């Protein structure tokens, strides 16, 4: 039986042009999918979408559904114009956690597609902005079956609602020379420790972990996550002087001055030396490069420009920033440095980061207001109270600069100073011993 198509003149325009068209994709399902259910659902969906394009309004509303045993992980959608477009009246999205780092074999993707096609609309997204695979378009009859099927072969739901959300980690150590940590391991250790908090929303609001292997922060972790883990290193950058010299000529070549050492050097001045935010780079007359490592802020720029010549050091670890998020309701927040550096090698290190995550979530669960993100809570109570709450000592790396307003009560200064000196003394002893 052929399905009567809703006209889609506006959407059709989006089939034109060189970029892959989601409209063509949906139409293809409508026109060519063997399963009538899918042909109908997608036809109806296109009808409603065209209606949105015409009226410039959306027509979905929410609700509450979940799979058996969980409280979240599905975004329910019921159509407000279900009478006009009945076949896609229910159009829920299952948020499924991808493997850390988003690695797939073609086989596993085919398997997921097969399961989805059996139960759902045949539309999915790799990935949502929080990193989930979004299986878009299940109805009340099917979502549990779909979940059961993929859950059996290793896939689980992510978060939705006031809970720990699906994490993200960059390609990192799997392929990237900038990586300073095992992003996947960190991602999975943290997330899978909070599985209960992912599945059963009971926190003040959402909580996101994101892991970037270096300060390039390809996961936008500092701005888009409550708990950002960023790889970095503490010892000296590694310099391959021969590779650097070669780059002088290679760059000269690239800019059309083959063999011109001066042009290559000029390129290095203009693009490397003068771009270092702390002027930590010197280009010597003998074409060697010197990094003032004590002044380098690990911004990554010079390594980015010269990936063959410059590499992160060996004493790798992570910095942790807490409290990033988008606008609601006090304006965007970037995360703040809470742990300037932490090794990430041993089982104990992994335990410590999980403990830190637990401390943070517990303190926030206790002190956050309803619908208040962790960063908003920090802003409300002040960083110092947050630090005390999670048991971390203040450190000058946590700030851009000390306070400039004199409104502060400094009783307790002497004790605080004493604590600092003791800490420094201990650090020295530890370093010596």
């Amino acid at each position, binding site marked *: 039986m052929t399905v009567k198509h809703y006209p889609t003149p506006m959407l059709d325009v989006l089939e034109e042009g060189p970029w892959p068209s989601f409209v063509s994709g949906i139409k293809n399902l409508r026109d060519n999918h063997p399963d009538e259910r899918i042909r109908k659902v997608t036809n109806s969906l296109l009808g409603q*979408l065209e209606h949105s394009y015409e009226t*410039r309004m959306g027509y979905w509303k929410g609700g509450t559904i979940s799979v058996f045993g969980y409280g979240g992980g599905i975004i329910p*959608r019921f159509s407000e114009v279900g009478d006009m477009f009945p076949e896609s009246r229910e159009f829920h999205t299952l948020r499924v956690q991808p493997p850390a780092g988003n690695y*797939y074999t073609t086989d596993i993707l085919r398997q997921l597609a097969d399961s989805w096609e059996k139960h759902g609309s045949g539309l999915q997204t790799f990935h949502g902005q929080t990193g989930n695979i979004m299986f878009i378009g299940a109805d009340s009859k099917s979502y549990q079956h779909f979940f059961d099927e993929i859950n059996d072969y290793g896939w689980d739901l992510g978060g939705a609602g006031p809970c720990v959300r699906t994490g993200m980690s960059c390609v990192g150590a*799997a392929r*990237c020379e900038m990586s300073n940590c095992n992003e996947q391991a960190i991602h999975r250790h943290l997330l899978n420790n909070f599985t209960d908090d992912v599945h059963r929303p009971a926190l003040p609001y959402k909580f996101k972990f994101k892991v970037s292997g270096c300060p390039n922060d390809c996961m936008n972790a500092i701005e888009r996550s409550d708990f950002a883990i960023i790889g970095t290193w503490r010892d000296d950058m590694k310099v391959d002087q021969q590779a650097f010299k070669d780059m002088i000529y290679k760059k000269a070549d690239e800019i059309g001055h083959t063999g011109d050492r001066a042009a290559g050097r000029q390129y290095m001045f203009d693009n490397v030396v003068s771009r270092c935010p702390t002027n930590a780079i010197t280009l010597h007359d003998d074409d060697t490069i010197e990094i003032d490592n004590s002044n380098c802020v690990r911004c990554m720029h010079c390594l980015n420009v010269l990936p063959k010549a410059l590499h992160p050091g060996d004493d790798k670890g992570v910095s942790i920033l807490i409290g990033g998020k988008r606008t609601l309701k006090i304006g965007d927040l970037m995360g703040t440095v809470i742990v300037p550096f932490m090794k990430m090698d041993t089982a104990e290190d992994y335990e410590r980061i999980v403990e830190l995550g637990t401390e943070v979530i517990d303190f926030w669960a206790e002190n956050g207001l309803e619908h208040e993100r962790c960063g908003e809570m920090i802003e409300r109570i002040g960083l110092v109270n947050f630090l005390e709450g999670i048991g971390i000592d203040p450190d000058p790396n946590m700030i851009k600069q000390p306070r400039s307003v004199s409104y502060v009560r400094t009783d307790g200064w002497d004790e605080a100073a004493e604590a600092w000196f003791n800490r420094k003394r201990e650090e020295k002893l530890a370093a010596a011993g």
Partner: protein
Amino acid sequence: MAADMREPIESGCPDGFQYMHPVMRRNYGQWLYHEDPRPGVLVHTARSGDKVWTVRAGTQRILDVFTLRRLMDIGDQYGEGYVRFTIRSNIEFMVADGARVEPLVKALEEAGFPVGGTRNSITTISHTQGWLHCDIPGTDASGVVKAMMDELVDEFKGWNMPNRVHMTTSCCQINCGGQGDIAINIQHVKPPKINHALVGNICERPSVVARCPVAAIRPAMVDGKPSLEVDEKKCICCGACYPPCPPMQINDHQYTQLAIWIGGNHSNARGKPTFQRLVAAGIPNNPPRWPEATAIVKKILQCYKDGAKDWERINEWVERIGWPRFFEVTGLPFTKYHIDNWRGARNNLNSSTHIRF
């Protein structure tokens, strides 16, 4: 009934190693450097001497199973059966055999998947649910992206930009799409219209009141029924009240417009991460091709391309030339709306005589 139900296996986040290309698994954490043989292609070399080639292609993000299978077919026929998706929904094919690269690129292009998005290109605009799925969207993010990428595809495939360009679109002021070098976002310009008949049933009034960032909502009795009222003078039309209370209708076919923000930069490269800043608003929300928004985006990109030095992201370029000059070169109007009046606004005012004439 619960007794019949299957208990979930709370396996959480799957292990990626099981799906990872063996050469990546083998050299995990041992990569030494990468090179860029051509747009859309990376080659990473490990300390062991092993290499892995990556071919990156744009997708429509909302994939139908046919398209997904077509991509898998390519992956099997021309690749080595291993793929990943980037944070921007580009697909990546990893191969250990460099000879596969050119045929793979060709196959992708022929199948309609542009290869590119690496280095100093304009990579895929990241986007959100829009009219296709969300309950509060003011526009269709997928549509905006498709329309713009059609016009920017050559920049996706080329290396013509001073540095990477990361763009985003979002379909309401919540901005799930996040910040970007250029972000195309919704901006509502009228306070919500309230359907008082529904408020009492649907909305938990205290939590709606608490949701308003400027305390413009008060509980009120309307026609003898519990409802809400909005102080329209205070309301900044953010739409934050709409998700918890849909009868506070914020979307409007006319008063829901687009705005463009630039200079959101999350990397720590050179400067510290920066927030995006408003440059244009009042842009018609004009499906199916949003030509007005695209025109402004293209103008900004052109000025950036002409004016920035290598490695300067958009925010760095503007900071170097100064905001007054940005408005001058792009021809965009400067208005009172650009002047911050939110908390901490004083940090965004010019408290110096550093002025360019």
